[in-house]
């Protein structure tokens, strides 16, 4: 994994070197805090990740997807964690994992791309804000600490903006093939049939080469890589990891299990790789929106609204699920199909990040989510 470096977009080798290497002389750590944002692209099923087994409607409406929770870790009287997330269950027990449920960004439609744009820019509608909230977060950190890296081939939207950011791709594909695939995509761009087939082929390829691959070993390697990039004093303070494969329209039971296993392995390897730094680390996991409460005709779920979000880390005031649970009865659903969002993801992220970095909550909200700045950040997510 480490033999392949690609510094794309604003992250050139030069930027990385000047940002990271020569800082040793100034390495007075105002903060040892590390922050990792793991984005779940494709709308992860929050209800399939953290099951509301205590809701009387859950078992009935979820059908076969509810069955897995029989062997999951019981989080409280209402919620049970998916059994694939064993390391996360351990962290929860130690009070280092906090879950939020029935949460959503301000976005209320069901397009992946628009939804991800809102999640990453911190706006209230797609393409309204031009840069990413993680990039703006760099602006509220001490200048010589403001280093971020995307553990990806390109810099994702959340990290794009005024401040330079590096990227580092953990792909094991030969460069030439990657390039050829992109050129083939361009070649087929104007051809309706081939464009459709190719998009599907690439989506499948991402699905199979992502989190679920190798029983999570690939995901674990990415987590370990991120830890290595974050660990040095001169390393990045903020990292973002992209995960795909969450768009489980069909056969969700097996696919989501594999996905969550990979995600769990990624968190575990981050913790292992960061060692003592874990005490100063916060990992945020969030997705653009949730999925339908009911199971569809192909053993999957379709695009929905409310979902779950996760915080991990040594300082997280965890061991609890934060939720104003709306219920799963038909009348309680959003547009009669989705989990109704009762908590704002912006407020959750703003509260978590401000507490973690010791930034005044209102200031953090103004910087990260200017359009919803009046919303109060959710406080008390981090141990005092």
């Amino acid at each position, binding site marked *: 994994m480490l033999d392949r470096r690609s510094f794309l977009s604003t992250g050139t080798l030069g930027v990385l070197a000047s940002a990271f290497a020569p800082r040793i002389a100034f390495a007075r750590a105002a903060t040892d805090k590390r922050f990792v944002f793991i984005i779940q692209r494709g709308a992860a099923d929050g209800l399939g990740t953290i099951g509301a087994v205590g809701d009387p409607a859950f078992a009935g409406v979820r059908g076969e997807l509810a069955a897995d929770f029989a062997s999951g870790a019981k989080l409280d009287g209402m919620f049970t964690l998916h059994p694939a997330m064993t390391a996360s269950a351990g962290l929860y027990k130690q009070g280092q994992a906090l879950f939020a449920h029935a949460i959503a960004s301000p976005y209320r439609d069901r397009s992946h791309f628009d939804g991800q744009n809102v999640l990453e820019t911190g706006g209230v509608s797609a393409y309204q804000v031009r840069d990413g909230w993680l990039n703006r977060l760099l602006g509220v950190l001490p200048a010589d600490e403001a280093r971020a890296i995307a553990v990806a081939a390109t810099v994702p939207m959340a990290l794009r903006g005024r401040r330079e950011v590096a990227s580092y791709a953990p792909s094991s594909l030969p460069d*030439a*093939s990657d*390039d*050829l*695939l992109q*050129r*083939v995509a*361009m*070649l*087929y*761009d*104007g*051809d309706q*049939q*081939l464009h459709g*087939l*190719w998009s*599907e*082929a690439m989506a*499948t*390829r991402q699905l199979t080469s992502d989190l679920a691959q190798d029983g999570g070993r690939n995901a674990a390697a990415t987590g370990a890589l991120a830890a290595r990039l974050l660990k040095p004093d001169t390393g990045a303070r903020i990292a973002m990891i992209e995960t795909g494969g969450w768009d489980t329209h069909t056969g969700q039971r097996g696919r989501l299990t594999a996905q969550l296993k990979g995600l769990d392995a990624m968190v575990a390897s981050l913790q292992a790789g960061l060692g003592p730094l874990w005490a100063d680390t916060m990992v945020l996991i969030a997705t653009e929106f949730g999925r339908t409460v009911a199971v569809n005709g192909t053993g999957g779920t379709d695009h929905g609204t409310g979902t779950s979000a996760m915080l991990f880390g040594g300082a997280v005031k965890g061991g609890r699920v934060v939720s104003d649970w709306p219920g799963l009865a038909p009348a309680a659903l959003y547009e009669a199909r989705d989990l109704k969002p009762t908590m704002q993801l912006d407020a959750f992220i703003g509260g978590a990040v401000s507490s973690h970095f010791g930034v005044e909550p209102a200031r953090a909200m103004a910087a990260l989510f200017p359009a919803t700045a009046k919303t109060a950040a959710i406080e008390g997510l981090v141990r005092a």
Partner: protein
Amino acid sequence: MSASSIALNRFGLGARPGDTIAGDPAKWVLTQCDRFEPRPPVIASAPATAGISTGLVAYYAQEKAIRAQFGPRTPKAALGMDGKPAVVAPTMSGAMSPAPMSPGVSPSGMAQAPMGPGAVDPVAAARQEARQVIGKQSRNDYGAAVAARTMAALTGDAPFVERLVHFWANHFAVSTEKFEVMALAGPMEFEAIRPHVLGTFADMLNAVERHPAMLLYLDQAVSIGPDSPFAVRKTKRRTGLNENLAREIMELHTLGVRSGYSQADVTEFARAMTGWTVAGIGRGPGARIQDDSRAGSFLFLDDVHQPGDRTVMGKLYPAAGEAQAQAVLSDLAVHPATATHIATKLARHFAGDTPPPAMVARLKTAFLKSGGDLPTVYRALVASPEAWVAQPVKFKSPWEWYVSTQRALGTTTVQPGVTVGMMNQLGQPIWQPGQPIGYDDVAAAWAGPDAILRRVEAAERFAARAGPVDARALAPTLFPASLSPSTAQGLSRAESPAQALALLLVAPESLRR
């Protein structure tokens, strides 16, 4: 697409470097009928039915010797519970197809098979070794035949006729899952289809239905007339009529499904066909003929033929031995439903997945008026404007795509194992459609996301191994006056000559015809 590009790609198998069409493209297509070689050296040197059958006979003898030495094997070997022949015993079928060969096994080693005392299970060991030898031989013969077919497609001077050979081989599909068919599928194409591709449909039909690959694949070789002398004599043996080939001749080879024949017609035709079998090989009554010079030959055994007159589709066929089924076959070959069926499939192959009705009608008329003279039908085909529309009408099958890429690269040598493996990876193993209906000839069968990705991966490999080729210069040769600006731009912006070549091989122009 220009007319030249259509001639090269839709009618032909794709251009080779330097190929140009001087004059009328339609004429270029049709004059290939004068140049076609049914038996070029690459085909003539491929394994033939006779030699393959001799090897099979030797294997059966070996098996028999083992049986004689160690006692009888399980009964029901000749016919399975379902009345279908257990062409190979259950334990063998697994060993035959892609079983790994143990190193060091050789035909000469077979004579010293570990049968002596001291061996743990001498029967099993001896059988295993014999199977490995014949299995390896069959795979080698299969690979050699695939290579021969590919060479003919790459180097022949009549790509339009070569395409028609592939078309007919798929029309008369056999599939290599049965191990005798694995080695004999290629010979059927070379011996029954190539010689008749420019003859009459009746002659081709007759040659195919008498070929051992077909007789074994569709179980005709084991079909026995219930009132034949053989059945009357062997009352204790499980014998009987097998309708498989008779049905598929009517449904797939001639009339077409739901074209007016009944189950009674199928049964009557199957009765008429009893006695049509193969000498020396397979598990049918003809297999007992232990005469090397006849092994693999068509054999009519009066002993298993159902006596009496037959009525098929309202017509009486008097008892006439072998000639009885022959008479039915001759009538089926020129039946109007057959003409419609063949016209539809040819129109689909050259004018698009939804065959234009007017063209089908024209081809049908040509077929019927000429008594099934195939060149007459081909002339009507080439004269059909529906086959010359400028928009590509077909998504290439993996075989079509593979052949066109290798022609584009000027490939003139073929490694059997490489070609067999490539066709497996691309999703269309040669002579292995898995069912007698053959491979589908519509885009829906081939235009899938994973299939395209595999072609891209394959193209990158081809391009990496090709010599220095300038794809930008090659492209107009392959698609004269038909290259899209976006493809031309994609090629010119490629980062290397090899990448440009890979892009050319998977460009929309290369995937369709």
